[in-house]
């Protein structure tokens, strides 16, 4: 506590900061890659056996010749260290290995599936933000029935299982009422329901955070002095409070990515959408480890990227922040 103001002064030159961020990012990805590799090794049972049967659809032991062939093909017969080295080298060349089931490069599979997922995630993120901010701006901190309702609604949305909500939305608005298409494909209109299903939950979380901060900031002296200058209540909310309230929300966006990807997997399955979700679930139920670990690696990379963006945004919004 004493003199801590002096202690806390740790500011860095943006470039130094950037370099450090890149480095730590690389470390994270590397660690994720190692994790991905380990997953493939700890897989119980003979990998070769699984590969053969998953693809042939046969059950029971395969001939030792077949196994040997597979082991040679995937290099399972080499010592772990060698395999690890190879795996890392592959990754450097953008090669995430080959799917056991589909016999196509994992990188390609993910590449062609991740697009829709990311579109969905980003759309949901934006919508969630929109909902959270608008509701907060107009309702939060006002002592009326609406703000209470809003609060409860947010808690509800933040808790309700997204896949369940999605199913209901699908059946109600697409199958029964026919307002939205059942098979959205990648058309904008088809994006509406999945996005909502994903965004509503998130907007609940955001709303909570933003709103708490909003009400807190609303009591700050600088708000009072703004009012004292003759500023209207809405003006104060818009010009002064909102920006502050948004800060914690921005930091949340990094965390939100993870949540969104998790949600997207479920939502895509519900809406039978193209995307990582279907692929991952299929891969999981057929033990197609390369795909799963590939996804792990990619999402780690994404996370690093996003959190970098988040920090930069934060810095733009709040110049007081020191880059650390």
């Amino acid at each position, binding site marked *: 506590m*004493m003199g801590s103001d*002096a202690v806390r002064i740790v500011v860095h030159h943006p470039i130094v900061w950037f370099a450090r961020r890149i480095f730590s990012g690389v470390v994270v990805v590397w660690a994720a890659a190692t994790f991905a590799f380990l997953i493939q090794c700890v897989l119980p049972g003979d990998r070769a056996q699984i590969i053969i049967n998953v693809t042939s659809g046969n059950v029971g032991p395969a001939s030792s010749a077949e196994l040997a062939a597979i082991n040679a093909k995937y290099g399972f017969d080499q010592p772990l260290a060698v395999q690890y080295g190879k795996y890392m080298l592959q990754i450097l060349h953008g090669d995430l290995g080959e799917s056991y089931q589909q016999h196509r490069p994992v990188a390609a599979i993910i590449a062609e599936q991740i697009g829709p997922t990311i579109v969905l995630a980003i759309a949901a993120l934006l919508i969630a933000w929109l909902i959270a901010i608008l509701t907060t701006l107009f309702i939060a901190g006002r002592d009326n029935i609406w703000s209470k309702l809003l609060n409860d609604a947010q808690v509800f949305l933040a808790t309700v299982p997204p896949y369940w909500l999605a199913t209901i939305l699908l059946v109600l608005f697409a199958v029964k009422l026919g307002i939205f298409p059942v098979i959205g494909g990648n058309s904008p209109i088809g994006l509406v329901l999945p996005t909502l299903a994903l965004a509503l939950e998130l907007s609940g979380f955001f709303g909570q955070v933003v709103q708490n901060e909003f009400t807190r900031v609303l009591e700050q002296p600088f708000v009072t*002095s703004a009012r*004292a*200058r*003759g500023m209207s209540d809405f003006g104060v909310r818009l010009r002064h409070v909102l920006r502050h309230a948004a800060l914690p929300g921005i930091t949340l966006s990094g965390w939100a990515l993870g949540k969104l990807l998790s949600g997207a997997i479920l939502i895509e399955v519900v809406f039978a959408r193209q995307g990582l979700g279907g692929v991952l679930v299929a891969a999981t139920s057929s033990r197609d480890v390369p795909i799963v670990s590939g996804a792990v690696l990619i999402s780690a990379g994404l996370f690093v990227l996003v959190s970098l963006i988040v920090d930069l945004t934060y810095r733009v919004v*709040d110049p007081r922040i020191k880059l650390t």
Partner: protein
Amino acid sequence: MSQGRPQPVPQQPDLLTVDSLRVSFGRGIAENTVVRSISFSVRPGQCLAIVGESGSGKSVTARSLIGLAGRYANVHARQLRFGGTDLIGLSDRAWRRIRGTEIGFVLQDALVSLDPLRRIGKEVGEGLILHGAVSSREELAQRVIALLKLVGVPEPETKAEQRPHQLSGGQRQRALIASALALDPRILIADEPTTALDVTAQAHVLALLEETKTRGKALILISHDLAVVSHVADEILVMRGGEVVERGNAVQIFKDPVHPYTKQLLDAVPSGRPRGSRLSPSTIVRSPARQTQLAVQSPPKSGPILLEATSLVKRFKGPDGTLRAAVDGVSFELRSGETLGIVGESGSGKSTMARMLLALDEPDEGAVQFAGRPWTTLAERERRARRRSLSIIYQDPLGSFDPRWTVGRIISDSLSSDVETRRKRQERVIELLDLVGLSKALLDRRPLELSGGQRQRVAIARAIAPNPAVIVCDEPVSALDVSIQAQVLDLLGYLRDHLGVSYLFISHDLSVVRHISDRVIVMRRGRIVDSGATDEIFRNPQSEYTKSLIAAMPRLVRDQRIGHSATILEEGIA
């Protein structure tokens, strides 16, 4: 221009009239009245000061004058007129037309009173835009610069582009005032405008306020500090528990206050009082038992050297990554039984030094000796046994208590381990509470359930519990109201005399330091600029810095105002 203050012209009409103002929060049974029937009026070129301690309802009064008492506040008044307009039941729209244009409002601590995310210029100019006082960007820019100049912010062009955290406290406060003055309101209400500031900055701001007053503005000054008020106020309202206990001409009140509370407040201000004299009327209870026990261990003053710091240096990484010395070659010694005051403005490195004395931070260079033996150079485990003979009292006692612990546990936790049996410890705890003037009823209270004064007393009890030789007091009273501050200071004095501990008394408040210390060290930017016996320092300070500090030091003016304000104003604007 101390004399040049234009006397209010009699026939000039009241600008603001308040008749039996009553403010309460909540409704029905939950209703809680915080301001009861207050009446006053202000004329142009006149300053009304509302003085009171926290919870006296002074701020609420101020806020109800601009209709910002809060959403849940119920404001009633027989009359509440501003110029021609009746402020009672004014629509929000109408209020907005008055705020800023007719009535300017300044809150304390501009760090939080200016939007930390927006540029100074925007904040200052906001009022201008809101009320359509400017037609073009250029005009706005010019007006803003002019305003900043007016309030004496140096190099306004650059400052206008900066954000609050980049300005010094003084500059911030001025900028805030500028934003209030932007539309040239006829009345300015300032709520604790100087509280968070260093002495010099404080003086500058006061001077600025006085100057605005002389420009014919009406001024309502809210403060807990009589000394501050005494320079500017023409008329004073002393509030307590939501009521006016005394009201009258400033000179009058300072000369011979009528109401006991006013007296008490005046006495509580250390400056201009003989050193060491009792500040608070409250008598500290003594049980004869302890008297005898204490009498034994009352040692002679200025005994052997207890704590000796030799050329201490502590560096931290600065904003540009370069090392900045927070403490730069400081040496001093503290003798047993004496009180060494360390004065300095924020950032002078006094707190950092305290940490080193307590061996919480390793000094980069130099060392501290304690009781003639090495201290900072020891390994922590060797130090532990001796730590208890060196305790500390923090500025913020609340933060220094585990919120989950009871007062009893907190104190007994710091009792030296040689008090074995539970009963002994328990007795000792109660004894200590009694010693610091607290009843044993507080034993099972938790810190959050205590008042500020009680907390600081508990903190003191904890500090003296292990019978330390030295107590480091880090701004122990700067968070307290004057009257409480007085009591605590008295208590500290009393304990020193009876327990023979030595204090290392750190404060930014010269009057307090002067009141309690035998010797004083003045620090600036990590160096000692002045040191010596208290009277010496205050009678003829050596360094310019000390001089300016003492000059800036607000002191009660009982008969004649000592007009240093003008000079300060100049250097402020320069």
